[in-house]
């Protein structure tokens, strides 16, 4: 654990320019308090300090009631999404040194706040296409008896977990690059004006279904995407792609859906006539 004089990453010492202090203005809200406010904290930082490091330092040394959500610490889980200086970031990979002397930290926009920096993600996941489940069977496992021994071992593990997951009715959750962090929904200028808009992540998931339908009917996906609160609500700001930490390119996927609806799908209907 770092001491109060050490930076959150444990960097300290006489090296001029390596340890610094930054003022973090942190959004605070507790249910029942009624009012939102910003608290200011002076935090010692080093060259490698991230915003998440700084927030955890505040928890340990200044205010244990500060609530935030994080898990993997390396941009894989998507749980530590925040607004840092009003731009969407994953706190675990957001370097403090890239920001100024005063850094504003806020929760994600367009989702209800549970407490402090934690938002309720239920509404985010509820936007995904229910009719066309994202949870679906993965690729068939490799040949256990005749294939590579290491692959065979992995296949056995795979089958074991599939057996355990069976009661849930699902095998694996797949959306390739998307880590479902909600940054795109927070950055989207349309999502703040229309709560019905399903948002970039859900539409990108639908487009991913078109790429690899795995039994899902393409027409159903397109019908879902072309609803009034679907692809046509996007106003082409490309903020979602800019905010996306994993290059899932949600805006480009929304445009691909539109292209499919405008040209390919229309042509398909014409041929059916």
């Amino acid at each position, binding site marked *: 654990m770092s001491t109060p004089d050490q930076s959150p990453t444990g960097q300290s010492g006489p090296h001029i320019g390596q340890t610094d202090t930054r003022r973090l203005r942190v*959004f605070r*809200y507790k*249910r*029942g308090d009624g009012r*939102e406010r910003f608290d200011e904290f002076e935090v010692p930082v080093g060259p490698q300090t991230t915003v998440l490091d700084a927030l955890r330092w505040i928890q340990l040394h200044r205010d244990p009631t500060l609530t935030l959500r994080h898990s993997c610490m390396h941009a894989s889980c998507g749980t530590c999404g925040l*607004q840092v200086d*009003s*731009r969407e970031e994953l706190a675990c990979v957001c370097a403090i040194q890239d920001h100024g002397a005063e850094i504003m930290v*806020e*929760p*994600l*926009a*367009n*989702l*209800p*706040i*549970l*407490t402090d920096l934690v*938002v*309720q993600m239920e509404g985010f996941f509820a936007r995904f296409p229910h009719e066309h489940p994202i949870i679906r069977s993965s690729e068939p496992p490799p040949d256990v008896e005749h294939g590579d021994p290491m692959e065979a071992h992995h296949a056995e593990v795979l089958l074991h977990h599939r057996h355990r997951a069976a009661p849930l009715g699902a095998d694996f959750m797949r959306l390739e690059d998307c880590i479902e962090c909600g940054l795109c929904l927070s*950055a989207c*200028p*349309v999502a*703040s*004006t229309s709560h019905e808009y399903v948002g970039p992540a859900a539409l990108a998931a639908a487009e991913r279904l078109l790429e690899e339908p795995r039994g899902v009917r393409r027409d159903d996906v397109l019908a879902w995407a072309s609803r009034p609160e679907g692809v046509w609500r*996007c*106003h*082409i*700001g*490309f*903020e979602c792609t*800019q905010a996306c930490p994993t290059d899932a390119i949600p*805006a*480009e996927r929304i*445009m*691909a859906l*539109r*292209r*499919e609806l*405008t*040209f390919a799908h229309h042509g398909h209907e014409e041929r059916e006539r």
Partner: protein
Amino acid sequence: MSDTALNQPSASPAASELPGTAERSAPGPVHHKGPGPAESGWVDPRRRGLGGRALALHRITGLVIVFYLYLHLAVLSMLLIGRSAWSSFLGLVTAKSFLALEVVLIGAVLFHGLNGIRVALVGSGIAVSRERAMFWAGTGIGIAAICFAALHVMGALS
């Protein structure tokens, strides 16, 4: 009544009766960008990238053009009043300050039109990967066009 009986709760309260339950179950506020109501968040350019700012400017220039349309109709209705009213109005609109407003209007039309072409193409799934290049190309064409328009309107070319 014995002390033991006094200290015992009559019955364990249901979860919904615990203090603070109502406050905790109430939905929290939804944070949004920009001052004012959430619906106006798109207006604030400070918290946006290039695409978001282009969207905001596209909407604002659209409103400017619609406002000008009604203003134009109102001005044309002065013809109904007579020649003298129209002549005095011409004196106003040929003033340099008014002509400068006309340049602003041309700028709004240029931005809205050029960005509209980009939005229409990208929104149909055409040249999506070139959307940023199209924005800057449109901006360059727009700047050149508005410079020419400004010189022309202000009479520098005649």
